[in-house]
């Protein structure tokens, strides 16, 4: 790791000021991606601005059909929160699948959403539930937020404060994890919302995306069989040593069916 300066601001405003003063500074959440990246010298920030202890970034609240989760909330705390389990059990389930126990004890919601790893789990829930990303500057709809491989709508100096999830009628997540890394080879989050069905896919493409053809098919029937023959262009998907495009396309369809199977079961 290159030498750097670690700073722990006392407020969100101070954190923003630090970012503005040091153009090469980077925000630090749980560090579950950033610290290994630094160790490999793939990044050389002048400062690490640790925002995990900012009070503005903490807390889980449920009210008026919305579930708000502070950006510094750890995966373990989302997975085990009785409030999350009641409001959106699929989200608690998803958080419990991220990485491994040690990673879940440090990694944060905001860190995952800001990093937007194409195989991360949280982006599927954020997009699938049509959540809103609240930053220190504005509110961003999930549909506008995710912009492909590690790319988001976040601007320089913008800090995610919390994510607001509308509580769906029902939702479910099914993931085929890579057996070594635990990252999603394909993960599909389906949600039945007031505005219809949403299907978000992670792990399979260059970034999380909505499978709109499936959403249209599910508007007519919620049976898993409704996804047979629904178009999914394999050419758009990832290909690597772990799986071909066609294999990933098949995984997406199978995971979507599994998620639908869960959807019809308990909430």
């Amino acid at each position, binding site marked *: *790791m*290159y*030498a*750097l*300066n*670690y700073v722990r601001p006392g407020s969100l405003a101070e954190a923003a000021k630090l970012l503005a003063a040091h153009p090469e500074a980077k925000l*630090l959440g749980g*560090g*579950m991606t950033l*610290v*290994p990246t*630094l*160790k490999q010298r793939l990044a050389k920030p002048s400062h*690490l601005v*640790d925002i995990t202890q900012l009070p503005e970034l903490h807390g889980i609240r449920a009210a008026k059909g919305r579930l708000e989760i502070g950006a510094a909330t750890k995966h*373990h705390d989302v997975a*085990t929160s009785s409030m999350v389990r009641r409001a959106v059990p699929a989200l608690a389930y998803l958080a419990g699948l991220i*990485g*491994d*126990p*040690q*990673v879940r*004890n*440090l990694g944060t919601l905001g860190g995952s959403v800001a990093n937007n790893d194409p195989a991360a789990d949280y982006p599927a829930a954020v997009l699938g539930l049509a959540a809103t990303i609240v930053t220190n500057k504005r509110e961003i709809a999930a549909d506008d937020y995710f912009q492909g491989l590690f790319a988001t709508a976040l601007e320089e100096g913008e800090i995610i404060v919390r994510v607001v999830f509308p509580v769906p009628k029902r939702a479910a997540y099914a993931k085929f994890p890579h057996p070594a890394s*635990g990252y999603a080879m394909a993960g599909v989050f389906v949600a039945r919302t007031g505005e219809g069905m949403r299907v978000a896919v992670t792990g399979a493409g260059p970034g999380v995306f909505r499978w709109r053809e499936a959403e249209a098919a599910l508007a007519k029937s919620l049976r898993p069989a409704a996804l047979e023959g629904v178009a999914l262009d394999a050419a758009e998907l990832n290909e690597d040593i772990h799986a071909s495009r066609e294999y990933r396309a098949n995984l997406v369809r199978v995971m979507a069916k599994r998620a639908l199977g869960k959807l019809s079961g308990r909430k």
Partner: protein
Amino acid sequence: MARVTLTVNGVKHTKTVEDRTLLVNFLRDELGLTGTHIGCDTSQCGCCTVHVNGRAVKSCSVLAVQVNGAEIVTIEGMAKKGKLHPIQRAFSECHGLQCGFCTPGMIMATAGLLRDRPNPTEEEIIHGLEGNLCRCTGYINIVKAVKMSAKLLRGRRHG
């Protein structure tokens, strides 16, 4: 440089270290606690698992300064008054190791797992140790050791 104070196995230590110092290096190089191993150094293997404020983390993926002020428990803090911790005893009795390199991490991960789930199923044990790799045993005896640990710890709580 950062002035870092950690309470490690009940003893408070303050050291001035570079900001980039990893927690595992703080423990091994500054405090001489070499029971916490560095296996893969890429946050895969879990050999470096320690507890920070009661939660298992991989100390090779955390800066010491990030956890400034925290309570840390390492493998050296498990045995009390020369008597092995029940989890250590179970790993020994079930032969839940061969070369022993991953064992400190396995034991700290097991302690974390059993705190959350005192009576885990085999499935929960396997998932609960997903962050730890063993290249010798094939895990069979490790799972046995975790089951026995759970039994011993339950007995201790009731007794």
